[in-house]
């Protein structure tokens, strides 16, 4: 396959960026999208040029490192997968592909396609946990959890924290990310104890980090590589409301 790539290049967070055009020949349809970028980067290094910086690690859709906006869509054209799981057979010979980083005020660009997602960690830090320390906990089977409830908690817990929901949202809202964690923990008995405090603290932190509000575009669910459902945003709203009535 022969492709035309338009890739966002930006030397540093303060510096202005621009699109750079590359003609890439010899791309195999069996390559993953990131392998295609490796292929480009090897070529750039052989020409003595600086390779394109992009975040990646596990390359199997679970670590949440990869973060590419491909042809205007977070994680590209396939649904339910991260950029790393996208394969070039999704594209056609002669295509032009535009590659950009996540764009959101809360995710400043570090370099090229690499952004700073520290805000997501700080939201979890604000309350996305159960306050138990190691040791002295009851037997794992002491508290039965109805299977459907456990399954729903797992549906929410599947979030990989990549930030595609933010990148896809016209408001750069992190509601789906926050909702997934709030719902996961509120659904399980150990997490229920702190549900009000958690929802309040995480939402306040989310606002402070500069994420926008949800106005029901649902682009987040479409972009989410784990297809996390927007119903959890309704759960978050209920939890937040509950928290404002019953502050703890």
């Amino acid at each position, binding site marked *: 396959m022969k492709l035309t790539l338009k890739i966002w290049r930006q030397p540093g967070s303060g510096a202005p960026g621009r699109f750079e055009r590359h003609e890439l020949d010899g791309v195999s349809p069996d390559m993953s999208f990131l392998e295609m970028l490796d292929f480009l980067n090897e070529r750039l290094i052989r020409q003595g040029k600086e390779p394109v*910086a992009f975040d990646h690690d596990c390359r199997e859709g679970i670590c949440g490192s990869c973060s590419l906006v491909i042809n205007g869509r977070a994680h590209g054209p396939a649904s339910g997968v991260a950029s790393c799981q996208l394969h070039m057979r999704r594209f056609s010979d002669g295509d032009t592909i535009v590659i950009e980083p996540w764009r959101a005020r809360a995710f400043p660009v570090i370099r090229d396609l690499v952004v700073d997602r520290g805000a997501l960690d700080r939201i*979890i830090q604000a309350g996305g*946990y159960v306050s138990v320390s*190691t040791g002295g906990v009851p037997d794992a089977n002491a508290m*039965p*959890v109805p299977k459907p409830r456990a399954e729903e908690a797992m549906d929410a817990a599947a979030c990989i924290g990549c930030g595609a929901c933010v990148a896809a949202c016209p408001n750069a809202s992190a509601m789906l990310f926050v909702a997934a964690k709030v719902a996961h923990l509120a659904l399980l008995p150990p997490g229920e104890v702190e549900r009000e405090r958690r929802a309040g603290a995480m939402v306040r932190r989310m606002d402070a980090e500069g994420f926008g509000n949800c106005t029901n575009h649902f682009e987040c669910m479409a972009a989410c590589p784990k297809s996390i459902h927007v119903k959890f945003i309704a759960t978050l709203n209920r939890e937040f409301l509950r928290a404002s009535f019953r502050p703890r």
Partner: protein
Amino acid sequence: MGLDAKIPPGPLPQKWERHRDRLRLVSPANKRKYRVIVVGSGLAGASAAATLAELGYHVDCICFQDSARRAHSISAQGGINAAKNYRNDGDSVERLFHDTIKGGDFRSREANVYRLAQVSGLIIDQCVAQGVPFAREYGGLLANRSFGGAQVSRTFYARGQTGQQLLLGAYQALLRQVDAGGVRMRPRTEMLDLVVAGGAARGVIVRDLVSGEVSAMAGDAVVLATGGYSNVYYLSTNARGCNVTAIHRAWRRGAWLANPCLTQIHPTCIPAAGEHQSKLTLMSESLRNDGRIWVPSRAGDARPPADIPESERDYYLERIYPAYGNLAPRDIASRRAKEACDEGRGVGATGQGVYLDFSDALARLGEGVIRERYGNLFQMYDEITGENPYQSPMRIYPAPHYTMGGVWVDYHLMSTVPGLFVIGEANFSDHGANRLGASALMQGLADGYFILPYTIGDYLAGIAPGAVGADHAAFGAASEEVRMRLRRLLSVGGRKPAQAFHRELGALLWDTCGMARSRQGLTQALARIPALREEFWTGVGVPGRNEELNQALEYAGRVADFLEFAEVMCRDALAREESCGSHFRVEHQTPEGEARRHDEEFCHVAVWEYQGAGREPAAHREPLAFEHVPLAQRSYTS
């Protein structure tokens, strides 16, 4: 210096408890005077950092990823073992211990393994209390499944994302401590050297991966939780960032290495598609519960799988190992797959693959059940290969996955450098010559939650806090060495990408130090590696500067360390003149093609001491005594 594993006296079942009660303690008021540096934020690192901070120590935790949550533990799919006996199928601490010793082919330490089995149940309790959404039965209690190398169902799981859920539990505990001020978390930070001053580990030299700044971090003890080195093979199931640098640098500073040649090749991975392949994707071993492995009986049979009648299929694991069938341990399943492919019976375009067939399970259980158990794995397979495993069998092939070898540690998980602790996959401790499925998560969390927090206290109680600061000369000297090496990498001036060298090294090791090893192949590898290293240092191209985010520079440094480390790995494989577990020396096999151990000569841990650049490492031995489980030739045939 001799090797003292410091295994406590007394009967095996009481060793840990009695020893724990005798460990020195640091009082709550004094704990806050100590600072511990934890390198790595996977299951072992995050659980250790969180637990140490909960106890009151100051903790600095670093990881090279952009968030602690992205450590490679996140990729573990299948599950975590624990001797809970919730299934009433006869499981016990004793049995988990026994399976692990046998699975490791009698090359692990009895006392460590027993302790691991003892704390396994606590881990599940802890994780449930953190809100880990394990799979449950309709009655609301926890579900279990069986896993390779075991005849009981003791594996707890969260769909195919067990590692992710356990790591998120540990990560959340860690961030809770960050919020409480007990942990200073530094993501996008890479350890490039260990600082040893006055005979003890006192800190690390790190590079900030965004600014390029090289700086010193001082502490009272250093904990390495930096994972395994399967990426030495270039293609492995590990995340691309996984590397050997931290433990290799520690080795150069005096931490001895144990059994570096013991690396696990996982039987169920998606085969490589071509030269461009950058990593191999694991398909959880749990698939072997319901999938049947087969190849055509006849070599060169290129018919599509559906056209091959039952009578012309060879379900070789079921045939050779009727008691375990498709659940034979990983090393055996991998080697038999290679054998079938070497005989020309491999499937797929490359001939490097075997079928993993779900048609029987789909007929027996229905698509709904299979989807619930393995839906995400089937989807992943479809996405990568473009083939639908509900309709045609998966193709799988073995791939490097886990390294049993690592830094030598004693019963306290302390290396030969006082104050340097090594936990999780980075140490060599519990898996012997082959790790059983669902035991890596167990070991990482056992070390981090329930073992290290006790043993490190015993060490800290014996030293004065803050005795050596970052102003000590050893920090300055180590920082300068790190800076010089970075400058050297940037100034080679070649045009060949580090990836090309890495690929070449990987292919060499896969051929000579992979699933089958021979004296001849290893000797060739030992001659080739130094030459490849020389080519690297004269031909590698690293564009850009140090003072910026420079991924080519990060990667080149890691490849340079792999190029050094590969040598001790091959040397270890050459010295171990026997076959055991995953280490298969073609010269040492039974007429049936099974591994043949030589207990009289090799019932020991091979330990290597760095002697300086260009010099052969010194060989040491820690003899292994089997008092509880009698040494026996491992057999899975009946």
